[in-house]
């Protein structure tokens, strides 16, 4: 199972890495590479969030801190210190891991801060970093940091090819980590923590160490992805980097895609990003956000367990959704509505609606059935 998934993942990444080479032959617009880069970026961020919050159940609002640290580490080191850009990526990863370990040491030592307290703590860390970026003239000081295009070997191709491949590499690393964790002893320790932390500890799971490792991996991946994002952002400002877009969107993506499988955040990132892009380009302006919000409410109501579980638990419905995806994409293409990404968005929205239609399957959420008075609860379960 694990080996097959690994093989599929490797094949997909190898194929995707080759895509920029097709540009000369097919002449497709560079825009598609930018679009794909953003999909990779969100896959990496949502997966990074999920390794901490999805797997352990410690809900974080602090993804922006890891992301922002990565962006500024790369930006400052390149622009202010003249460090080779490619060196700044691993440095950003290490810094992200250290920040995460610091947050973890604080939160997990202090009597296991759970729930909203943990979420608030992670949010506070983000605001603190943002304030430091505003105040410290070394980090930013409110001036903004322009990022020069780094020098790189010619065989890596056009600049956008480079950004695309770096984004793909980090997304691959994140998804690979999620996949390996999920099928390992470590991953099962995290799932046990998510379901019943005290019991996990009593059954021999070293919960503190597990949580520390999970948050450190999450922080490292988030910052790595941020360091690559610095290239795409181009000009850094504290408001632009440390806003709530990243922490909120990763939650939406992982929750809607599904938090219990490595594919969940991947699906969520693809669907939500294309939905958001489609709405941004729809000419609806701010109303696009309202539509996005409305769709999200519907998804949370009808598929709280996430799209992945719907696909897994209902193979026939999933097949129908797959057909819908292809048909809707092709139809939108034949009508000639917008460009290829719009066709794909149309297909994805239609497929998502097919998945969401009908009665939701039985809840399997970890916390849906936490019972306080077990002895008499049997009869009430069916409702």
């Amino acid at each position, binding site marked *: 199972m694990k080996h097959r998934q690994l093989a599929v993942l490797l094949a997909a990444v190898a194929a995707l890495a080759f895509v920029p080479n097709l540009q000369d032959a097919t002449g497709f617009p560079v825009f598609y590479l930018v679009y794909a880069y953003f999909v990779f970026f969100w896959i990496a961020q949502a997966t990074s969030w999920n390794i901490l919050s999805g797997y352990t159940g410690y809900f974080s609002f602090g993804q922006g801190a890891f992301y922002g640290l990565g962006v500024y580490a790369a930006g400052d080191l390149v622009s202010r210190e003249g460090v080779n850009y490619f060196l700044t990526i691993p440095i950003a990863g290490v810094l992200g891991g250290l920040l995460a370990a610091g947050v973890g040491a604080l939160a997990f030592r202090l009597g296991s801060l759970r729930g909203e307290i943990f979420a608030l703590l992670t949010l506070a860390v983000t605001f603190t970093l943002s304030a430091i970026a505003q105040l410290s003239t070394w980090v930013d000081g409110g001036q903004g940091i322009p990022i020069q295009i780094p020098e790189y070997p010619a065989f890596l191709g056009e600049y956008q090819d480079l950004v695309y491949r770096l984004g793909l590499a980090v997304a691959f690393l994140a998804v690979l980590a999620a996949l390996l964790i999920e099928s390992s002893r470590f991953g*099962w320790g995290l799932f046990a923590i998510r379901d019943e932390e005290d019991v996990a500890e009593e*059954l*021999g799971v070293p919960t503190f160490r597990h949580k520390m490792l999970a948050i450190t991996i999450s922080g490292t991946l988030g910052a790595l992805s941020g360091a690559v994002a610095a290239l795409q952002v181009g000009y850094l400002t504290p408001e632009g980097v440390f806003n709530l877009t990243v922490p909120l969107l990763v939650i939406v993506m992982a929750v809607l895609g599904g938090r219990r499988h490595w594919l969940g955040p991947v699906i969520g990132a693809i669907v939500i990003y294309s939905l958001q892009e489609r709405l941004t380009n729809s000419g609806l302006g701010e109303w696009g956000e309202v539509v996005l919000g409305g769709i999200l409410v519907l998804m949370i109501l009808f598929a709280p367990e996430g799209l992945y579980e719907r696909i897994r638990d209902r193979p026939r419905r999933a097949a129908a959704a797959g057909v819908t995806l292809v048909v809707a994409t092709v139809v939108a293409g034949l009508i000639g509505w917008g460009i290829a990404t719009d066709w794909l968005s149309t297909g994805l929205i239609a497929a998502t609606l097919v998945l969401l239609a009908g009665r939701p399957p039985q809840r399997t959420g970890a916390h849906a059935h936490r019972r306080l008075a077990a002895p008499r609860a049997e009869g009430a379960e069916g409702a």
Partner: protein
Amino acid sequence: MSATGTPPHSASPALLECVAVGKRFGGVHALDGVSLTVAHGEVVGLVGPNGSGKSTLIGILCGAHTPTAGRVLLDGRRIDRLGPHQRSHLGVARTHQIPKPFESMTVRDNVAVACMFGRVSQTLGEARRSAEEHLEVVGLTAQADARPREINLHQRQLLELARALATRPTLLLLDEVLAGLNPAEVDEALGVLRAIHAGGATIVMVEHVMRAVTGLAGRIVVLDRGTKLADGAPDAVMSDPAVARAYLGREHGARG
């Protein structure tokens, strides 16, 4: 290593030793100067009225609470400052009065987690195979692929037991594992517990079902208001007037 304070004439060396254990919650003495020795292979029933400190003692043994006084030794080694997972690796396991399964996992995987992380660590694949054996011991083989919420209370308590066994404990702490069961289910569960004991486990059980305590335990320890009131063979303890006053007079008649 021989445990300090073990009487030289005891039949087998002590597995568990509590020396003057005390626990204060704020100003309240939940436990005060409780000393207790459990030999290898023994089954000890821990009884007492509500609030007598039974659950606190179980909590101190498994690491959920840190004692404010005294020492706890397992096989002569001090364990009262160790975290619960370290004690699990040394062979201490417990069940919960209200079952606390991992709700997102199947019954089999609930047990597999304990196999992976308990006294003997296993990989996921090995653990899933071992889980089958433990499920067979408690009679849950048919429910292996079910989710915990799909099985009844009795089965959830058996799952709790299977999970504790899967850590391969040397000391098994049972916290009212028979609570809420009907007489037939109690008989079935007692059969499982006898088999577990026959397999060599040392058991400390908190139990209100007197039939279970007297039928299974070779020794009974009575707690009352945080102190040890009596400790001895079931018959002797049950006919102790002090025990009758503190515990049986109020609880036994009501609980049956």
